[in-house]
């Protein structure tokens, strides 16, 4: 299992979002090294693009999006580069980074954001190593179940989504209803 380009999205509880407000927040994260074990580089603002990537905190190892795809705002964690560790640890790490970013965003008083934990979208942006098909799903399903349970407690239900033209994607109903902090504490 070579793919490393994992993406994890958690959705906000309330629907609407003022994307412009994320721009100063992400700049401040860069300034104060809020994600201390990653190199944060710049902020890309795509608030003008409907259903787009929203506002992106560009990093070296990974990017953090306040993404509005499908008109469903959420924090999208996106790993871009290799991960030292095995497959399961790689998935765990992606979930953990996504959740930690959610926690940081929830703590921003200018934003008034809260993230739901009942649903997680997992994707792999690597059509060569992880095409969106049943074989990939079979390879990822146990690991995703394990990670989801580790963070959210309950037994999850998984569904592969999208067509083969799209990146490999799995929608996870975690069965949880708690907060982001709960999930991080549980792990």
């Amino acid at each position: 299992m070579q793919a490393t380009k994992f993406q994890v999205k958690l959705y906000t509880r309330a629907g609407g979002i003022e994307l412009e407000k994320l721009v100063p927040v992400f700049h401040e994260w860069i300034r104060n090294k809020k994600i201390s074990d990653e190199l944060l580089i710049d902020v890309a603002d795509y608030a003008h693009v409907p259903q787009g990537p929203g506002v992106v905190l560009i990093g070296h190892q990974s990017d953090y999006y306040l993404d509005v795809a499908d008109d469903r705002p959420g924090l999208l964690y996106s790993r871009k580069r290799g991960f030292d560790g095995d497959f399961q640890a790689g998935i765990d790490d992606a979930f953990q980074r996504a959740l930690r970013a959610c926690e940081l965003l929830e703590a921003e008083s200018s934003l008034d954001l809260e993230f739901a934990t009942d649903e997680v979208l997992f994707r792999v942006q690597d059509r060569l190593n992880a095409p969106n098909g049943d074989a990939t799903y079979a390879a990822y399903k146990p690991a995703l179940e394990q990670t989801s349970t580790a963070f959210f407690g309950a037994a999850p239900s998984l569904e592969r989504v999208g067509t083969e033209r799209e990146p490999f994607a799995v929608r996870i109903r975690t069965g949880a209803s708690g907060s982001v902090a709960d999930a991080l504490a549980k792990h």
Partner: protein
Amino acid sequence: MTSWKEQLGDRIPEQLAGEVDLFEGQIELKKQRKLDDKIFAETRLRRGVYGQRYDNGLRDDGTGQKTLAFPCGDLTKGPDTVWDAPGMMRIKIPFGKLTAKQLEVLSELAEENSDSILHVTTRQDIQLHFIHIEEAPDMMRRLASVGITTREACGNSVRNVTACEYAGVCKTQAFDVTPYANAITKFLLGHPDVQDFGRKFKIAFSGCEDNPCGLVTFHDLGAVAHVRDGKRGFRVVVGGGLGAVPVQAKVLAEFCPEEELLPLAQAVSRVFARLGEKQSRARARIKFLVQKVGIDEFKKLVAEEREGLRPDERWTAFLDDLHATDEKPVRDPGAIPSDAPAGFRAWAEHNLKPQAQEGYYSAIVTLPLGDFTATQGRALADLARKYTGDSIRCTVEQNLTFRWLSGVDAVAFYDGLVALQMAAAGAGTITDMTSCPGTDTCKLGISASRGLTGELRKRLTLVEGELDPAVRALRMKASGCFNSCGQHHAADIGFTGVSRQVGGRKVPHFNIVLGGQWTENAKSYGLVVGAVPSKNIPKAVDLITQHYLTNREGEESFQAFIARVGKREFRKVLAPIQKPPPYEEDPSYYSDWGNPREYTIGDIGVGECAGEIVPFVEFGLQQAEQQLHDAQDALEAGQAGAAALGGFTAMVTAAKALVRHLEVQVKDDADDVVANFKTHLHDTTLFHDPFAKGKFAAYLLKMHGEQSYENANDEIAHRALDEAQLFLEAAHACYERLTQAAAAAAE
């Protein structure tokens, strides 16, 4: 585990496969530090792998410049360009033509290697940002498998050949220029005669004279279709360009028969390669050569060159099948249903153009700031397959045009766009602005052209319905600096990023350029009326459009109005908003649109605009040209004091650039610059003209000593500007001598 190389196999054309393998090999060598920085930079640029802002590993976070600690350490991909730093990939799309499949692959790359955004440029290319160099070879393979090459998208080479997006379907065209643009693209790509240019070379085609189409007048080489006595040919122009001092192309041939087009382009290329400037990049575009020798002499040189060319069957082979590039509609033609809904009608007003072919339309999908997402890209590919076939074109106004839409399907197509939230109306109107990347990603950006464009777009979209039709029809374009990549000279209202010093702080501004003509292939450029703080630009737009509406005579067009009232009047209109409030009163003026960091120009990097890296000195010399240009405007406006000061400032800027080129530390203030200039350039005689000796240097020293620019009258101002002009010429010449000497020493 397979690789893209194995996976795609022979779907990658053999030659491209070889080129990408070679490039991958060079990446490997560079990683082992076995390749020289400059050579590697040139190689990567020629493959479309460009630098991006902060790739020197430094970035101002709003509190000062910080080092970006990339894990690659001191490994670089060019002089001062950090290996791991994100870069941009410019993907050449000849005349903007895309198939559905190509759009899908581009979308895949945007997701997997970029930030899921595809960006359409003002020269019909697609750019992806934040790319890691090591991912470039596989991206190129995937592009090659659908017939796209990034080769010569950057660098001192023939750039993307552009053409009107309506070529072949337009009502006013003389004929379809697509097969000609296609032939010239293929003929010149990798041609030995275009490998030795001192600078980039841009070619554009237009199907007619009157419409903007190809914007040929600001291209290095432009061809406008004409039929004479039943025979096809082109009016060919040469030596146009934008930049700090925009130039209209001159006529090279009133009528060049179709079979002579390729040889003519080849002859021009050879003359440019042979005689074009190579040392001073600031003067290396062909426009400077044409200016230097004069168009008549240039014509003679080209004619002689043409005589001596060895015949090449490719010159005319493509003429045997001029329909090879034709698009086939996938649906039967028909009329738009008479009961089409109101939303559709509002969109169709500007976004749907009837084609020459009865029952077919071209639909413009307006893209905010030229951006769309990978998901939208796939959905658009589906719409194309269903309704229009492989007929998509990227446009110079950063939109996508879908041709061959049957009237019968127009509403369904529109509904498809609505579902994608891509049905914004008003293509080509005031809300459909064009913008270069500016400070968002460009290393040379001075102001946030995208931030400004986003802001204006947002505000104007809200009031779109209430705008007077004459205002709504205006075009606005923004560039982040004088290089004019946003083509603002050809807009009714254009903006160029400049920075101004206010109370010891830098404030982002835009110079406002009014009355540029978009039609007739951008027949005339606008007038610079003055700089306004970025944050006051929305107000400026209000003031300008109000002034026009209130004072125009009858149905007077905006261009006619500007030409009649002149820039002086607009200076008065803008005067009240030209000065930002002090920082203590309103700090918002001291940061740019969409960027909360305190404004700085410290992030401006060394540009990689083409081929080799552009040294700071050339950036400085260009900036000086711009300042002189502004000073000349000021003089014309009767502001003698400002003009003389501007002339002096231009000299100081040029002097500073040269001093820094000698690696001497110099401060921003004039005293320090002049003192250092005297020590290192005047006293050493480095600045001395071979004939005039120290004469030009003396202009600066004298003006500085006497402070004669203060309270200057008209006569003094005139003299100051003449002297500044000569000083700048001498600065360019001095820089040339210095680089030649350095090159000789290196050998």
